[in-house]
């Protein structure tokens, strides 16, 4: 879309215009969501029922957390296809340990998060040490991490009855009317949004994504930044995996298979440019909510669920095409201004 996010306060008028366009992606998405919600409410009034809204936002919160991690990676011009396997692996292992050992739940969660971090670090290490494309490496780890789940599961599944009493309750509980998961997601999104905007690391992430050579000239250690992005992506996929386990209670070896498309779609729809260097984690989170809304609309309007996959695909294509159009227009504006 635009590189303004990488150098805020560019000052000149085209830069200001670019900034306005960049912000408009989040606003556009919110507007589309409001229209879609209004439409669904007219056709199916139970959309606005608190139960339904809680469920939509709770599920979207899980995807938003994973999408924040994916956004960090995409900002550095990379992609992580293995997030869904990390989610499934952490969901299963946490459930598996909880049913076999009588350990405090918090400790098992920490164990899960540590493992998730290691999986992310493994991706980052292979990619930065051997200087190989992330798409290929994470296509490989997508299947390797999923394979580990099959080894651990060995044909079994974790049922809610195996887990500590009330394990799934947080999925339906609310604080001041807001579902717990939404609060967790909001905290994570806020922390990362602030970190990207105001910390050294955040600015380096944008620098590496905008122009790796320039970044290394000004002293950014690109490899470390990319490694950190993948590590955090793994960690956040672990958080999403734990929440997934709490939400569904029943965990299979195939849990969360195929959700990487939804996560990447959320990131791209949320305005994070796949070419790196531009976009926000807030956008990615809004993108996740938007896709969750579409999912819910299909359910409520009694449309076939088979459409979902096709819609995700179309949404990805639409979002990247819009990016290209905006980029083209920006270039024309910049050229006009230069003349």
């Amino acid at each position, binding site marked *: 879309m635009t590189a303004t996010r990488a150098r805020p306060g560019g000052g000149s008028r085209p830069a200001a215009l670019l900034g306005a366009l960049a912000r408009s992606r989040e606003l556009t998405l919110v507007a589309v969501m409001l229209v879609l919600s209004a439409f669904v409410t007219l056709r199916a009034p139970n959309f606005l029922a608190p139960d339904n809204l809680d469920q939509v936002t709770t599920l979207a919160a899980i995807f938003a957390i994973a999408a924040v991690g994916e956004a960090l990676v995409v900002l550095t011009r990379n992609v992580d296809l293995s997030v869904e396997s990390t989610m499934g692996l952490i969901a299963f292992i946490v459930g598996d340990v909880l049913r076999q050992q009588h350990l405090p739940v918090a400790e098992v969660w920490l164990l899960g998060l540590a493992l998730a971090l290691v999986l992310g670090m493994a991706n980052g290490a292979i990619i930065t040490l051997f200087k190989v494309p992330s798409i290929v490496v994470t296509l490989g780890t997508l299947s390797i991490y*999923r394979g580990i789940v099959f080894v651990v599961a060995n044909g079994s599944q974790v049922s809610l009855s195996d887990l500590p009493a009330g394990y799934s309750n947080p999925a339906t509980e609310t604080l001041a009317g807001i579902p717990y998961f939404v609060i967790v997601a909001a905290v994570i999104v806020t922390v990362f949004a602030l970190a990207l905007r105001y910390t050294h690391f955040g600015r380096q992430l944008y620098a590496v994504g905008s122009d790796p050579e320039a970044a290394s000239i000004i002293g950014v250690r690109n490899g470390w930044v990319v490694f950190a992005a993948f590590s955090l992506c793994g960690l956040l996929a672990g958080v999403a995996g734990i929440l997934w386990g709490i939400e569904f209670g029943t965990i299979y070896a195939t849990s969360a298979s195929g959700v990487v498309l939804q996560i990447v779609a959320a990131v791209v729809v949320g305005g994070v440019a796949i070419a790196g260097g531009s976009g926000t984690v807030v956008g990615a989170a809004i993108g996740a909510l938007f896709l969750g809304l579409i999912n819910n609309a299909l359910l409520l309007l009694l449309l076939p669920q088979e459409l979902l996959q096709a819609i995700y695909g179309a949404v990805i294509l639409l979002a990247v095409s819009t990016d290209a159009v905006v980029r083209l227009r920006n270039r024309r504006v910049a050229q006009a201004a230069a003349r």
Partner: protein
Amino acid sequence: MSEERAAVAAEQPAVPSALARRRAPLAALARWELLLLLIIVILTWAGTQISKYFLTGANFANLTSAVMEVAIMALPSTLIIIAAEIDLSVESMLGLSSAVLGFLWAAGVPLQLDIGIVLVVGALGGLLNGLLVARAGLPSLVVTLGTLALFRGLAQVILGTNAISSFPAWFTTFGFDSIPGTPVPWTLVVFAVLAAAFWYVTHATWVGRQIFAVGKNKDAARYSGVDVATLKTALFVVSGIIAALAGVILTARFSSARADNGTGLTLTVVTIVLLGGVDINGGKGTIPGVILAVFTIAALQNAMRLAGVSSEYQAVAIGLLLIVSVTAPYFARQARLVSDRVRGGRHPPATAVDPGEVIP
């Protein structure tokens, strides 16, 4: 005479090293392909240790026909990766092709016509990828990730969770039978013809040279008159058609058209291409290398199946193999650096020509 040549050589020390450099990738490729051959031999030996049926004709037919869909899809994918792009959508185009084929056949359309329509669908899907990548200038990674979801979604819309079988005998015979009296499956013939055609086009025509040029340096290729956009669009169209053909073959082999046919095969296709020595960054690779990689994967999968390894673990092995083959060039580079350093140590004055020849 010899002094003259030595003098010339001394004046132009860059020439021999440039020659050596030009020969080096070829030599490296030859080594890579030899390595693959060696792996195939080892796997064959391992296969005979696992099962006495490994070297039988029937098992050869099994082993090859099991990978023919990914094998034919790997051919256009090789060219796309040489041109520094990627097509992740092939597995979904395979599924869409299978779904359309089943839908039309169930609706009473003659099968020959169905196959024609399916190939057109493949071409259109490839055209969509090609236009978005080559004309709109979008990254192929996201575009084909989008169509990976889109094509699979369309397949699900068309066929839902139904499975269409009851195909005519000639069709299923083509899918899983061999040429009578030989252990050669009919589908292997399709692969052989396509592989020969791709080999010829890639390594003996100007189209092939253009593909390599685009992969090495897109801008340089454009300035020297290559129509980069059309070339790339054509590659994606071919990839779509071949993926649709793979859908036809898979439907015939399983004798069942399902929307989820071929899920996860992109991993195998990309693994075959990279294992075949094609550089993921574009500009380098050979069709013979990829053909050897096809048989390496076939032997590996077959050996694992005979050893009773479940399909989930087979996917893990393929994933590991993918990472090994993508990191292999790094280790090769390191090894070359080390050997250069060792050689540099033996001949401290690092001149391009042997000093002994210059001074008689």
